[in-house]
């Protein structure tokens, strides 16, 4: 499971760093490298584009995993270049941006938009796998998530918008409930689809979400 990201437009990045002339760029060696949005190559490309805009790039690094505990250590190694920058442009998912933001009080600027938590089906194609709803129903739905795989997050079967196994929102996308139906049928467990599912609790962990596990 990865954080799936997309690069913001250069215009968007430029607007966010307006008035901030000296920029330090941080990439991520995990998800953003896999999605070609914040790996070494994209960081170097960003460096060039910022320089074309007349910005000074004080340095750059690609942290192995921007969201984990090693981020601070990794940034400490580059402390000089970081301290001389007006802002840190982070080319990771929002987890990494927040981690870096807590580090030294320098303004952090996201260069990527975080789209969803997903898995890779084929090289370069990802789909959202989990919405972290806090009430997993995969046991009733043959392991296919109706929250993320159905546009409407329906719990009791397909809507009338499905056609030939596809979704009304996008004819290229599969209807989750057709997939669930077919898999349950193969398993001889269609009785699960006939069972009424009550509305979900939208407040399993109310926002701001935090929980103590141990």
């Amino acid at each position, binding site marked *: 499971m990865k954080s799936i990201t997309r690069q913001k437009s250069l215009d968007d990045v430029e607007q966010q760093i307006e008035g901030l002339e000296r920029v330090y760029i941080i990439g991520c060696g995990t998800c953003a490298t896999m999605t070609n949005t914040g790996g070494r190559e994209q960081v170097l490309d960003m460096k060039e584009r910022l320089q074309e805009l007349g910005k000074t790039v004080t340095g750059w690094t690609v942290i192995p995993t921007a969201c984990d505990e090693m981020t601070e250590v990794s940034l400490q190694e580059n402390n000089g270049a970081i301290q001389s920058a007006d802002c840190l442009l982070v080319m990771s998912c929002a987890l990494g941006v927040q981690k870096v933001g807590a580090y030294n009080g320098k303004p952090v600027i996201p260069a990527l938009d975080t789209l969803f938590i997903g898995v890779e089906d084929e090289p370069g194609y990802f789909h959202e796998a989990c919405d972290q709803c806090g009430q997993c129903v995969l046991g009733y739905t043959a392991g296919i998530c109706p929250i993320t795989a159905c*546009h*409407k*997050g*329906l*719990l*009791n*079967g*397909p*809507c*009338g*918008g*499905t*056609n*030939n*196994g596809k979704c*009304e*929102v996008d004819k290229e996308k599969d209807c989750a*409930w*057709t997939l669930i*139906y077919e898999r349950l049928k193969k398993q001889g467990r*269609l009785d699960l*689809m*006939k069972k*009424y599912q*009550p*509305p*979900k609790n*939208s407040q399993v962990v109310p926002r701001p979400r935090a929980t103590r596990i141990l």
Partner: protein
Amino acid sequence: MAQSFKEALNSGKFIISSEIGPPKGTNLEKMRHHIDILKDLVDGINVTDHQSSVMRFPSIGGCLEIKEHGGEPILQMTCRDRNQMALQAELLLAYTRGIRNVLCLTGDAIPIGDHKEAKGVFELDSVQLLRTIRLMESGKDMGGNDLDGAVEFCAGAIVTPEANPIEPQLIKFEKKIEAGAEFIQTQAIYDLDNFGKFMDYARQFPIKILAGIVLLVSARMAKYMNENVPGIFVPQNLIDELASAPKGEAINKGIEIAGRMIATLKNDSICDGVHIMAIGREEVVPDILAAAGINGHA
């Protein structure tokens, strides 16, 4: 309106419902005109709820207009735009204003409409909304609290008899009946043999089925629906029939086709009634009924 929609459903007669779409804006003239045409002609008038996810005057506003004009409204309620609190509150309002019929729908997806960046709610689905109505009739809300004054509705839902694959739709259809649906208005049907097969199956359930009749106004519209509207299939012979009409007269052919279908459904007792959707051409609903050999219904 001599009798309520529920009384009509239970009367054993062939039921006719139709529908109107509220305006985009505050000019209610056309909608009122359509209400005037339909109110004494049909047993119930649906008011669409931001149909196709296009923002409009609200369904409940249209229902109140129908009440004021002496008609029998059927409140279409989708789960797209309101969370459970707003849905329940609207049911309370509807009941206090004499609206007694609700059609429970999931709702079209936001991206197909005209507010493409809006948030789709879909906190409940159509089955859960049906159960919510039955719960509120027992004097409770979804939070488990007592209501000071309960509701009472004739609740309905939809089914798409031409869907492919059909079985997932039928599983949901049965869940809607278990949840307390009293009537079904189907998605548009054109192939009566196919619909007859659906009815052979549906007859086992204690529910009234109204076949969806969407007026065809041209061969082009028929082809468009075949390509773009899920669950609608217009057979080639009907498309040819529409295409054979002289220029500008395809709508008359469409009226003839709709009338013919309604007459067959009624005379062969295939289903319990029809739901006529003229999609903006409500002024021809009397002609459709005349073509079906039905003159006035109230």
